[in-house]
């Protein structure tokens, strides 16, 4: 499925005039002054609680850029805590009247029936519709996206453990569309949790709480796909490269390579890389360059390798044959033939294992409770599982969970959980930079390996519970907007205490990406 982007060919580059047209520091400073951070958002500013309400009201008004619509309830309730960092989504364009089937990079499948979108007038829309979709499979992603993970059920607060979450929205001409309940989109979410204890919830941003939808919508289609991983472990690996007899009239070179990546090359004595000059003319001046890096890649023809040399911004690639001289050719061919025979055997075993795995998948799906799935949904999940099996998904996810999208927004396969079982203690968080107490509106606790986030308000820290048998990570955002964390070793110091101070490490500097944030969190 093609994602939503234009591909332009041979577009005229920017001219010096184009650049100078935009480069105007005075205008830039005017724009900067017009939208620079309001004073209460600047680091170090602190105000008493008596005026917070007023400030929030004014801040909401002033934070709206000219010409931009005010923040929707969704953005207010789901707000990434780190400015400028969010979980990226993928945009797809579909024909509303025709529907489509989309595959997300995790292996999830989105089945869009005909007329799945309603316009402002409640009627199905025609033409191109843009679908924006993203998934959340770990605590760090959920935190980065600012998705609340507490659930109020009849006045009791629970903390969610997720088996996979998704956000889907649809747009036409910049306007949001509604889901057509008569023609719902179905999503088979590739979940990394193979436990059947979860419910489906929809995030109701108006009520500011999760809505329980039903228990069985997220149906565990195939419980044991571990054979897929086993099949991957028995992969045949790349086809060995056949050596050729060196032609002394052609240019060749030798370079160091990783013997683990190219074991057959390591076995060929006197190996050289002979340039295919018909495809990549050899530049003899390259011999004099002291290259920083040489990279070898197998080509799809199975016979040649591309060697790419790099020095600073200079890069040169040559398509090469693996050659040995006459003296070593017979031994090299013998080595190649032995390796090729082993490759063919492994390939046959792999195909056989995949077929057995596929048969098992089919049997598992057949055993599924078909009464609880529409025919379309069952076919959808089966197709998704087959698709993942065929492409050899890199992920260890085991199950597909089915969501029937009645409204656009955030959907979650969740299990409400209580705080970790432990004796409560009164906890005070200390800023490692200045040894002052940290006051943060939310403190997050995660047990590594468990996809749950326990969210503590300042008041709840008076009875903090943390299962110290687990490897825990705790973090919060400091008043000056920095990420402060405590790792398992720091949390282990709380053992057997009724009252404790926990010193947090504060990340210094700008966090610029979800990946970096996850790294700082240690997740």
């Amino acid at each position, binding site marked *: 499925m093609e994602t939503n982007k234009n591909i*332009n060919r041979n577009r005229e580059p*920017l001219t010096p005039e184009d650049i100078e047209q935009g480069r105007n520091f005075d205008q830039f400073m005017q724009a900067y002054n017009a939208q620079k951070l309001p004073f209460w958002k600047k680091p170090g500013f602190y105000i008493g609680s008596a005026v917070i309400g007023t400030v929030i009201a004014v801040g909401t008004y002033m934070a709206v850029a000219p010409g931009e619509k005010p923040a929707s309830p969704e953005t207010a309730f789901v707000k990434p805590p780190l400015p400028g960092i969010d979980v990226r989504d993928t945009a797809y364009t579909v024909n509303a009247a025709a529907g489509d089937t989309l595959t997300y990079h995790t292996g999830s499948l989105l089945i869009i029936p005909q007329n799945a979108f309603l316009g402002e007038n409640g009627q199905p829309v025609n033409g191109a519709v843009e679908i924006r979709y993203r998934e959340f499979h770990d605590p760090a992603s959920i935190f980065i996206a600012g998705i609340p993970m507490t659930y109020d059920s009849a006045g009791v607060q629970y903390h969610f453990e997720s088996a996979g979450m998704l956000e889907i929205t649809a747009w036409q001409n910049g306007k949001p569309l509604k889901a057509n309940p008569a023609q719902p989109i179905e999503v088979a979410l590739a979940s990394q949790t193979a436990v059947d204890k979860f419910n489906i919830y929809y995030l109701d941003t108006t009520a500011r709480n999760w809505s329980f939808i039903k228990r069985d919508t997220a149906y565990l289609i195939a419980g044991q796909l571990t054979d897929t991983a086993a099949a991957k472990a028995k992969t045949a690996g790349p086809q060995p490269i056949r050596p050729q007899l060196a032609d002394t009239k052609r240019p060749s070179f030798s370079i160091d390579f990783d013997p683990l990546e190219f074991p057959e090359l390591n076995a060929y004595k006197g190996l050289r890389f002979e340039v295919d000059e018909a495809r990549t003319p050899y530049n003899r001046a390259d011999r004099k360059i002291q290259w920083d890096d040489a990279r070898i890649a197998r080509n799809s023809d199975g016979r040649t390798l591309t060697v790419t040399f790099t020095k600073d911004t200079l890069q040169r690639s040559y398509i090469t044959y693996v050659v040995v001289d006459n003296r070593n050719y017979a031994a090299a061919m013998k080595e190649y033939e032995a390796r090729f025979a082993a490759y063919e055997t492994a390939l046959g075993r792999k195909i056989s294992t995949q077929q057995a795995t596929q048969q098992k998948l089919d049997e598992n799906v057949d055993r599924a409770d078909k009464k609880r799935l529409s025919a379309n949904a069952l076919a959808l999940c089966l197709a998704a599982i087959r698709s993942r099996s065929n492409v050899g998904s890199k992920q260890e996810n085991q199950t597909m969970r089915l969501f029937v999208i009645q409204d656009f927004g955030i959907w979650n396969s969740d299990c409400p959980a209580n705080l970790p079982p432990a004796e409560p203690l009164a906890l005070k968080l200390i800023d490692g930079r200045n040894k002052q107490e940290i006051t943060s509106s939310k403190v997050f606790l995660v047990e590594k390996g468990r996809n749950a986030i326990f969210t503590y308000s300042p008041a709840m820290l008076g009875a903090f519970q943390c299962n110290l048998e687990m490897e825990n990570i705790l973090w919060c955002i400091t008043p000056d907007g920095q990420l402060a964390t405590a790792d398992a070793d720091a949390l282990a110091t709380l053992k057997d205490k009724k009252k404790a101070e926990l010193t947090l490490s504060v990340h210094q500097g700008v966090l610029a990406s979800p990946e970096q944030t996850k790294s700082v969190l240690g997740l």
Partner: protein
Amino acid sequence: MNLASSYHQTRQQIEAEAAEIEAARGNPARFAPLYNRYYARILGFVYQRTESKDDAYDVTQQVFITALENLGKYKSQGVPFSAWLFRIALNELSRQYRRAKVRQAVNIDDTQVADVLHELGDENTAQTDARLMKTIARLDPDEVSLLEMRFFEQRPFKEIGDILEINEAAAKARIYRLLERMKTIYSALV
């Protein structure tokens, strides 16, 4: 179109730039040398990824506003200021794509097509050209970004790593995985 420029800076250049950054922290008006030095590179970087010049001007302005607002948090740590700006630009572009305010574009010329086909181990013909376009159309935004930085803009691994805040080896690994994925898609399009 090759947007790459010299990434390496001498120690003197880094120190001089650090002094400019420090001055701009105290007085935003002194951000001018940094703005003027990097404007063309950021504009080119953004224009490569957008459909129109107007979008590129708007996004570029926002990149520098974000940079100036966050200058107090910038720490050199051996990473050139340009990498930090490119990182902000990628984040800003991602934000604008999500908000559907800016349409993502991939701009590629015939030479680059030949180079990428070469990486994929194939010759440049009308058929392989069309297959490559379909392959690129199927890549995720992050993958397109890697493709652009490495193969269209010819950035060294070190710079890609600095922009993405990963080490050089990890940048190489990502490019390697990208090529493997492209080969998979490309092969399936036969």
